[in-house]
């Protein structure tokens, strides 16, 4: 398979993807190219714009559907649910927020994990769900990611984690921070055991998730134009009070600065993962 020549970020212009909200209706205007596109066609195309290849943000359930061989996904750790250990309250209480998010998404928290086959290769699959509190990592996400890593270690399965997250969940404060140490330490053990970890970064992956397991992949793939970074662009801009370079923190920029192995379009993700699994001999 040949890879399309990598565009430099200067060529990518201002067509950077924006918010994930997919408007209701049969037709929608693509935030990438501004064309009116037929919704069903976009959805059938893995939620990628058929005109400009803009990658729409997708939830964990859709991601699993795309990644796993049909019928092969066996969910795990589904009994985990979040608590409100600090009785946290900002403009809204965390307890209310959790409930609202659970009703909105039908998910218990921002993670889906389980074993699956990817093009016939058995793997441990763990996907963060952006639609639930921006995929933020609290205790449940940290625990599910850690158990996924431990399961991969114990069963000698290749581990694939698909990240899309605003970072550590503020509403669990210090406990969220500790999930960074917990998940990273679990990866040390997977590494000691000779396991394979493929990290897939999607738009956006920032903060405590990037600064822990997401950047620790043996192989790191990023979806085109995904925003990936430690600090968010707004925070950086406020700190340095300068315009940020064009394409800054986008997947192609990270490829140029040596931070990811490949920028992989969604349509090629399965075959690329399968290829790495084969090379690793797992």
């Amino acid at each position, binding site marked *: 398979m040949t890879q399309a020549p990598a565009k430099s970020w200067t060529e990518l212009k201002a067509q950077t993807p924006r918010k994930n909200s997919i408007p209701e209706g049969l037709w929608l205007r693509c935030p990438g190219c501004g064309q009116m596109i037929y919704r069903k066609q976009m959805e059938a195309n893995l939620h990628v714009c058929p005109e400009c290849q803009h990658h729409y943000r997708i939830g964990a359930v859709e991601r699993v559907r795309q990644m796993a061989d049909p019928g092969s996904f066996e969910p795990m750790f589904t009994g985990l649910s979040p608590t409100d250990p600090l009785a946290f309250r900002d403009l809204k209480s965390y307890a209310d927020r959790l409930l609202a998010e659970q009703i909105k998404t039908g998910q218990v928290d921002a993670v889906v994990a389980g074993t699956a086959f990817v093009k016939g290769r058995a793997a441990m699959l763990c996907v963060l769900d952006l639609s639930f509190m921006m995929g933020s990592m609290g205790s449940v996400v940290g625990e599910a990611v850690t158990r996924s890593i431990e399961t991969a270690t114990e069963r000698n399965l290749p581990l694939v984690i698909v990240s899309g997250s605003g970072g550590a969940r503020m509403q669990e404060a210090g406990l969220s921070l500790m999930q960074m*140490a917990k998940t990273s330490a679990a990866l040390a053990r997977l590494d000691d055991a000779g396991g394979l970890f493929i990290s897939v970064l999607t738009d956006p992956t920032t903060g405590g998730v990037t600064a*822990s397991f997401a950047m620790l992949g043996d192989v790191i793939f990023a979806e085109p134009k995904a925003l990936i970074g430690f*600090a968010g662009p707004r925070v950086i801009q406020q*700190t*340095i009070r300068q315009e940020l370079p064009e394409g800054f923190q986008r997947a192609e920029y990270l490829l140029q600065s*040596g931070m990811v192995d490949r920028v992989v379009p969604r349509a090629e993700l399965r075959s690329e993962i399968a290829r790495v699994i084969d090379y690793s001999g797992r």
Partner: protein
Amino acid sequence: MASYYQLEFEKPVVEIEQRIAELEQKARRAGAPPAEAPAYPGIETPEAEPLPDPAAIAVEIERLREQREAELARVYSSLSPRDTVLVARHPKRPQTRDYVELMCKDFCELHGDRRFGDDPAMVVGFARIGSTKVLVVGHYKGRTTKERIACHFGCAHPEGYRKALAKMKLAEKFGLPIVTFVDTPGAYPGIGAEQRGQAEAIAVNLREMSRLKTPIVSIVIGEGGSGGALGIAVADRVAMLEHAWYSVISPEGCAAILWKQANDQTNQLAAQALKLTARDNLELGIIDAIVPEPPGGAHRDPQRAAANIERWITDQLHELRSVNPSTLPARRYERFRKLGSYTEVPVG
């Protein structure tokens, strides 16, 4: 008496200190021996006011000093989370280099990450604490304005975290325990930092520290902000100084995101909500101990603060010395593994 950067809640204490200073001045005048006073015999020195009784002044000063101690203890025993953050950031609060000077001998500083550069916001070097040889790692904010700017006010770059890790691996090779001082508002958010992999540098530190086969003890001495703090705090034992803070984000950052604006009121609410004090962190199991500060905070008596920290470190190192180093990573793993709060229903 030294004047300190004045915190709002310290006002009653500062008022007492001012009165003590006035009285001391009076006492000096009163205490000047009058016998040797006439420089020109025969000429009367004008006495504008009658000299106060030195003994009475001394008694009053003593009384005020006691009052000051009591007031300091009172104020500092009931700091709000927001006040704690202000104390933790006090410009006179001792920093890593101060503690190294106060408690270590023969500090042998090591520079550079061998990849890009040397980050002054991260101080690393061999040192002796008592008779124990250790590797010291710590964030550094800087003392002078020039130094503070060079250190980005304690916000380390990727090269800082990589320098720390490189030397920690050296410590592991030499069988030296590692002592880390955490004092950062957070890792630096900037273009260069992102380009050079701030997230990756921190992530690698978390992973590698978890499997170092040598004892690691960490203490948050001032600010423990987010991943930038944790990046040198994956340790066998973690403590906080009494008035330090440690959480997932600074109260200002949290207020800006969750309250949509950072101002006095939202900063206070965020500080409260983030459970960032030493006591909160102890309750959550995130830290193992609180190291007490002298009354009025570490900045009022750095020697005593250093002595308290040294005692805690020495005790931990003594305990950890009896553990086989090869079993330390497993124990460290368990320490972090159990952190988190969730419920679980059996699924079958």
